[in-house]
């Protein structure tokens, strides 16, 4: 047996796990080979050291640590409701406060939206409107009587030298809606001519007149009033102007119905607007004596009077001194009070 082979078998030799023959061969080699015997002795002493290592005592915290870890594992997961409500003295008040805040927030938002939620939509309102409600939503007219240029013109700014606030036209609104809102707001602003006859008497005349594009109208007599044509000039009336120019128009009784609408249509066609809150002067024995107040560009005053003369007679005594303007271009705005008298 050579040294390499003998040394490779040393471990098993010392463990006594070699077969007897090999055990004897290694033993014989060790007796003859001093270096291998030295290696064997060194290995033997190493094993003695290893086997003589003291066992040692585990620290006492080992068992404690094991117990802690096991206890941590055995703790059942906290149920959701406990996480939600415990500790009760802290979480329940906090959650209650959060719930109240959330309720207030939702309620506040809902309350703001409430009027819109309960108010009927224009289309539905039109369906339910009585026959005398002659205004229809403008979108219904869009396909029949295209008026975008007119509408756009009405929304355009007034001439540059008159930067005044104005109100946007709301084509979707019905006359009833607008009247309702006008009442609730206490506003006497300018609206369409169509609603003039049905509004209560005016007590104030201080509100600014703002041009509004009238929707398609039907007179109380069932006569259809065409909206202002696209060719009509844009309204330039946008600031409060007193209705100091008075005109009286006399009409026969059979022509009386719907006269307000025709006057209003003429004013709007000429770029003017109609006072939203008509002032009824009173009712005489033969019929209504009504007043229609309009604003017009000064250069439309004459055409307006011409239109009125087509609708009825304009007696000279019914005209105030300033009713007829002098000719010539003007950027002024004039206010007319048209009194209707039935012959």
């Amino acid at each position, binding site marked *: 047996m050579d040294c390499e082979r003998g040394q490779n078998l040393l471990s098993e030799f010392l463990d006594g796990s070699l077969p007897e023959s090999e055990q004897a061969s290694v033993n014989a080699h060790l007796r003859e080979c001093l270096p291998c015997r030295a290696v064997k002795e060194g*290995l033997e002493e190493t094993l003695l050291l290893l086997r003589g290592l003291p066992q040692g005592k585990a620290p006492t915290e080992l068992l404690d640590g094991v117990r802690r870890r096991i206890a941590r594992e055995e703790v059942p997961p906290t149920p959701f409701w406990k996480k939600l409500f415990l500790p009760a003295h802290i979480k329940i008040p906090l959650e209650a406060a959060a719930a109240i805040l959330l309720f207030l927030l939702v309620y506040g938002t809902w309350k703001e939206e409430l009027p819109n939620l309960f108010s009927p939509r224009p289309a539905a309102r039109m369906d339910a409107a009585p026959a005398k409600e002659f205004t229809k939503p403008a979108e219904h007219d869009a396909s029949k009587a295209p008026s975008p240029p007119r509408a756009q013109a009405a929304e355009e700014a007034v001439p540059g030298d008159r930067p005044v606030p104005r109100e946007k036209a709301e084509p979707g609104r019905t006359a009833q809606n607008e009247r309702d809102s006008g009442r609730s707001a206490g506003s006497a602003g300018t609206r369409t001519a169509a609603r003039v006859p049905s509004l209560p008497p005016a007590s104030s005349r201080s509100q600014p007149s703002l041009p509004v594009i009238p929707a398609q109208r039907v007179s109380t007599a069932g006569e259809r009033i065409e909206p202002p044509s696209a060719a009509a000039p844009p309204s330039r009336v946008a600031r409060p102007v007193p209705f100091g120019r008075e005109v009286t128009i006399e009409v026969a009784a059979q022509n009386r119905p719907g006269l307000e609408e025709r006057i209003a249509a003429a004013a709007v066609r000429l770029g003017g607007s109609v006072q939203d809150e008509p002032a009824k002067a009173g009712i005489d024995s033969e019929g209504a004596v009504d007043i229609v107040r309009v604003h017009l560009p000064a250069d439309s005053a004459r055409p307006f009077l011409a239109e009125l003369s087509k609708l009825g007679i304009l007696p000279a005594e019914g005209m105030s001194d300033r009713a007829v303007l002098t000719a010539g271009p003007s950027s002024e705005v004039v206010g007319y009070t048209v009194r209707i008298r039935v012959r």
Partner: protein
Amino acid sequence: MDSNGGSPRPVDLLLQAFRQGKPGAFDAIVLAHQDRVYAFCSRMLSDREEALDIAQEVFLSAYRNLGGFREEAALATWLLRIAANRCLNRIRQRSSLAAREVVFPDGAERDYPLFQPPAPEEGRPDRIAENREMAKILERALGRIDPDSRWLLLLSDVEGFTYEEIAAMAGIPVGTVKSRLHRARMALRKILAPVV
């Protein structure tokens, strides 16, 4: 090695008690094995804190899995096997260990400082082995052995398992256990040569 014939071992009784849900049974199992497990971990890891941590993990793992323990081996063998796996995993996690490990087999140049023995007047090694200081020296020497061989060394020469038991625990052939164990012993002898 724990086998002692047909009569049940005390540990087996503890195991039965644990399975019957008797209070304190698992504590008794821990107490019965903690010194051995801790010593093994300590020698594998050369670090007391880490050894304590791993030993606790071993018993925690045992607590979780004792229900499925089929007693094909002694409980101690099973625990040491868990300990060996945990220690090897921990060692592999150490990035700094590679520089300290011994590269063997034979003839390889040492790239680590020579083992510094204690003063020669401390006497013969067989007496020194009983000395705590010598035990520390030996454990430090063990720490220089490749971990995959170290645990074979500990199981065989410290814990007294047979080749077959070690092969079963390590999942390697008996011949491989023998050769690797021999190389580990020779490497340790080299390290301890100035002492022994």
